[in-house]
Every structure is written in C-alpha cells, then in structure tokens.
C-alpha cells in the first residue's frame, strides 16, 4: 500500500546504524533518472523486519537497499550515482 511509504528521514535510524554521517541530509543523484535531491526527501519503504528501501520520488528507482541480518549489514547503493556529504571538520 502506498500508505506504507514514508519520508527519507524514516530510514535515518537504520542508516545511522551503518553510516557515521547523517545520510538524510546528504545530496544524491538518481542513477536512473538523474534527479538530484537530498535523501531525506526520498521515499522510504521500511519493510518491517526485512529491510529498508529508499526510492527516488521521481522514478521509484531503488536508491538505497539495506538489510540487517545475522550480524551483517547488506547495503546496495547502485541506484545512486553519487552521494555528497558535508565535511564536518571544515
């Protein structure tokens, strides 16, 4: 159901387990349609207990696919052309 989709910030908790930077404020470009935005504005499908899927709001392409099982994280970022993150130190 499309009622199950949430904002990019809904995935922030799970993404925060893996990345040491704030992913939802990171800029990305979609590998499929080229749309550039911030991850926080993307569509999140939290497939309860299975994984987290972040999709491009323009074309539904899976930007990030993430699962956590058996003590391992599986991360697929192929849907993203690049991720741009601010350097805290500067």
């Amino acid at each position, binding site marked *: *159901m*499309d*009622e*199950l*989709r*949430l*904002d*990019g*910030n*809904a995935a*922030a*908790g799970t993404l*925060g*387990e*893996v*990345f*040491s*930077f*704030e992913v*939802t*404020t990171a800029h990305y470009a979609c590998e499929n349609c080229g749309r550039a935005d*911030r*991850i*926080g*504005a993307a569509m999140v499908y939290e497939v309860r207990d299975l994984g987290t899927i972040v999709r491009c709001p323009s074309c539904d392409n899976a930007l990030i696919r993430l699962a956590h099982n058996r003590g391992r994280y599986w991360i697929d970022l192929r849907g993203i052309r690049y991720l741009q993150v*601010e350097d*805290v130190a500067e």
Partner: protein
Amino acid sequence: MAVQLRRILWGLAEVIEVVPETPRTKSLLLEVPEWEGHEAGQHGDVRLTAQDGYQTQRSYSIASAPEDERLMLAVDRLDDGEVSIYLTDVLMTGDKLELRGPIGGYFAWEEGEGGPLFLVGAGSGIAPLMAMIRHRGAAGSDVPTRLLYSSRSYEEIIFREELETLASRDGALEVIHTLTRSRPEGWSGYDRRIDAEMLGEVGWSPEESPLVFVCGPTSFVEGAADALVRLGHDPARVKTERFGPTGG
C-alpha cells in the same frame, strides 16, 4: 543542519513520567543518559523486547525542545497498536525503554534558520512541530510563526493549553485550529479537513517564502504538500514527515 558524527546506537532511557494529554494521547517524559542533544523536528526510535526475545520498534517524534531538561515523546493510543498500547497503558515511572536517536536532520528547524515558519499538523503530527515551537520560545526567537493544526475534536487537541498560553503571550505566534469531527458549542473556527483553500488563507504567501513543515498521517501530508506546491510554494522549502497510515 545537525551533522551526526558517529553511528547511532541503542541506549536505555528511564521513564520519569507518563502524562495524559488527551483521552487518547499520553506524553512520555524520559531521562536519557549520555543524550547528546537534538534538533527540533528529529525523532527517536523506541524498541520493545518481550522475554522470549521478540522485538518490535517504532519511531516517535521528539516533542520537547532541545533546551528542555527531559526528552518528551507524544504517543497516540491506537486500538490495535502493539507498541502504542504498551507505551500508554503499561509503561510507568521507573521503567526502562530502549531508545535510539536523535535521528533525521532533514525534518528539523533551528531558530537561526529564520522564517517565516508555517507549521501544518494533524493529530499526533503535532509532536515535532511542538518541539519547534518550544525551541523557538526557549531561544527567545521572534520568527513569525503560524501553526495550522487539525484535530478530530476540541478535547483531542494535544498540548492545547500550552499552545494557547504561548500564543497569547507572543504576538508573532499564531495558532489556528480546525476540528474535523465534532466542535464545541459556539465554535467559530474551521470545521473541516485541511485543504488548499485553508492553507492559502492561513499560511504565508509564496512570495513571503516561508519554511513549511507538514507532519501527520501519510495521506494527510501528501494532500497538504501537494496543495502547498500548487499554491506556488517552493518544494525545497516544504518539508514533510509522514507517520505512515496510522502513526505508530
């Protein structure tokens, strides 16, 4: 924008108080050891574990300001809510609660970002917006702010008294309610679901370039966000937080 410097892991919060706010909503006041602070608008994840190891988790927006002493979460008691029923019926002072956060720098506002600020919420979607209003107050900010808040009835307006008090003392803060199911006698305010016309009447014009935050159930948020963009607001200045079909 908050920049998170390390991985966010689960910690143990202590319940200081469970406060009834409306017939269906309670707020949880928590003491969180090693809490590093948060930005208004961020949320926390709550995880429950049964004795046999079964676990489930939900996200709840933080309703307290970064300046507040205790962390506050607002929980709507849903009829079939596995987690919300536990948090509102069972949890009590002294209990421990697994919490992870703060999470989500995207839907957040810090008074230095200015405004004007247009906050649009429905039901428990008020939580992150309340954090912003409380932060604004604590920081002594005079950023012009309007809250358009949809509730089912007068009794179900969460934080109603506090909003009344804050708005009466602060000329730059306006609170506009709409009651969708029932109204008290003599009610002269809005009496329908938020729509484009209401948003146009209440909110700042696109020329005034407000920062807009919309929070509540998914269908509510999508309808309001679409309407705001069609009214001419810059999509980059309309931030949304969808609570899913029921909000938890």
